């Protein structure tokens, strides 16, 4: 919940979440560590400070919604949902295993706390907008936080969604672009340039903020400002892919490669 920022508490949560991400992906021998580590601080700020939510009542009508449009980064959201108590932490041991409710990409019907099924890129943005439109129709007060990857918004659908949100004045939408400049095949500006990114969203009618996505004060203050906007808001959060595990930082190799035993040990030693 909002109020004074407890930096130490958020740092402690982020450390636990990052350790959980490394463990989950190492155990499953499958999954996406880089983007999950990079987005951790934003999700921690949302779930442990900003969002109105209650793990004991996942269907609470006026809860704020979080939609992980960059759906491959399930490790970070699963770690947080488990820590919050949406489901038992032991469930994390089943990530990406047959019979688990923790699918490789978010599956809303099965996982408590997951608001929308996402996976193929671009879809989650539009789904979040549909949810936000419904809230407008029903005069509900909650916010819709939508996390996109920077590579993800190379999808044409992202820009369809950008137009749609502007048309219907969905100022209950607060989006994030996890701007780490890396995607599966390399540096985003080599693969398919996105810069200048802020003017793109602005020209589509969104209010845009650019922040350091690892600075809790900036994340929280910006979201508080975003809530006052009369337009949909996109927060371009500059992040470091692999943040917190130095040998993974800014390395595209850590997009979708699971750490082996040695790498796992080294990563966990760094996350203390």
């Amino acid at each position, binding site marked *: 919940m909002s109020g004074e920022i407890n930096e130490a508490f958020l740092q402690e949560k982020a450390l636990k979440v990052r350790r959980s991400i490394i463990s989950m992906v190492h155990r499953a021998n499958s999954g996406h560590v880089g983007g999950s580590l990079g987005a951790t601080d934003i999700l921690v700020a949302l779930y442990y400070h900003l969002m109105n939510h209650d793990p004991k009542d996942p269907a609470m009508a006026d809860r704020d919604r979080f939609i992980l449009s960059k759906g491959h980064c399930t490790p970070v959201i699963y770690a947080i949902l488990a820590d919050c108590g949406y489901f038992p932490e032991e469930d994390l041991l089943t990530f990406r295993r047959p019979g688990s409710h923790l699918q490789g990409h978010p599956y809303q019907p099965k996982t408590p706390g997951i608001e*929308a099924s996402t996976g193929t890129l671009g879809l989650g943005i539009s789904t979040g907008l549909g949810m936000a439109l419904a809230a407008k129709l029903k005069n509900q007060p909650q916010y819709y936080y939508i996390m996109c990857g920077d590579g993800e918004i190379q999808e044409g659908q992202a820009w369809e969604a950008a137009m749609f949100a502007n048309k219907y004045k969905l100022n209950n939408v607060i989006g994030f672009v996890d701007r780490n400049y890396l995607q599966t095949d390399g540096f985003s500006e080599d693969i398919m340039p996105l810069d200048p990114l802020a003017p793109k969203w602005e020209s589509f009618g969104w209010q845009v903020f650019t922040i350091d996505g690892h600075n809790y004060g900036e994340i929280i203050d910006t979201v508080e400002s975003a809530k006052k906007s009369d337009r949909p808001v996109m927060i371009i959060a500059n992040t470091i892919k692999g943040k917190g595990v130095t040998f993974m930082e800014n390395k595209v190799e850590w997009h979708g490669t699971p750490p082996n035993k040695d790498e796992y040990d080294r990563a966990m030693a760094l996350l203390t």
Partner: protein
Amino acid sequence: MELEYKKTRQGYVDGLKELAGELPDMVVLDADVAKATQTFEFEALHPDRFFNCGVQEQNMLSVAAGLSLEGMIPFASTFGVFATCRAGDQLRNSIAYPNLNVKIGATHCGITTGGDGASHQSNEDIAIVRSFPNMTILVPGDYEEAKLATKAAARAAGPFYLRFGRDAYPVIPEIHGAFEIGKAKVIRIGKDIAIISTGILVSEAIQAANDLEAQGISVHLIHMPTVKPMDKEAIVEAAQRTKGIVTIEEHSVIGGLGEGVAGIVSQEHPTKVLRIGMQDVFGESGQAQELLDKFGLRAKNVIEAAKKILG
């Protein structure tokens, strides 16, 4: 007797209009073809419950998924070819996979879309949607049944694909009455040959049956407005009662009604199944009636197939 001609897409929007009072959470979306899908008539009555997404079929389907997650009942309307091919990923991953309560109102399906040509003639949509788990597919045979199907879909839970045509087709009183999702309509019981149709070509099936009966051939005639889930019982019964089955649909013979029927009888009661439909070819521009002739989707083609089976 003079037949009355009406459009199934008109049945769709008339169904929506009739549902508006009963279902306050129902909303209608379109993608810049409201004048063609006819949803502009709904917009005129309920502007606050209509959302024109512009030429954005992909966004529209995912937005519809989001609306349903918050308890709305969205009907997303566009041409069949756009709903299933252009936005196939969104239909699969945003709607079918999470089993959401989204209804797709797909118009301009089949070869009778006519002049626009193959790019706009959706002859693959049933095949695509049949292969997605959780989907129910309704392909009404006339205006009245289109209205009934729309209402049935709105009142049922889960994702639906509703398939409508462009042109006016005969109103067929034989297929009216209660509409039950998943149930075939047995129009006539017979013992020589079974004819199974879906969609507007029910009129060709009826004509074929009448002509065959006049020649002393007894026809078991079934109309299947639900293509998924298929009414297995009715199909097996048709196979048991007769010497073979002819299917007719305004769709590719790959993945549609005919292949579904063949799949069921091959397991349950093997019998010969001949499939009238688009024979793995793209269509072309022309008037609907010319195209039905050219691509062999007529009563006479059903009769030929029936005689081939009967020898």
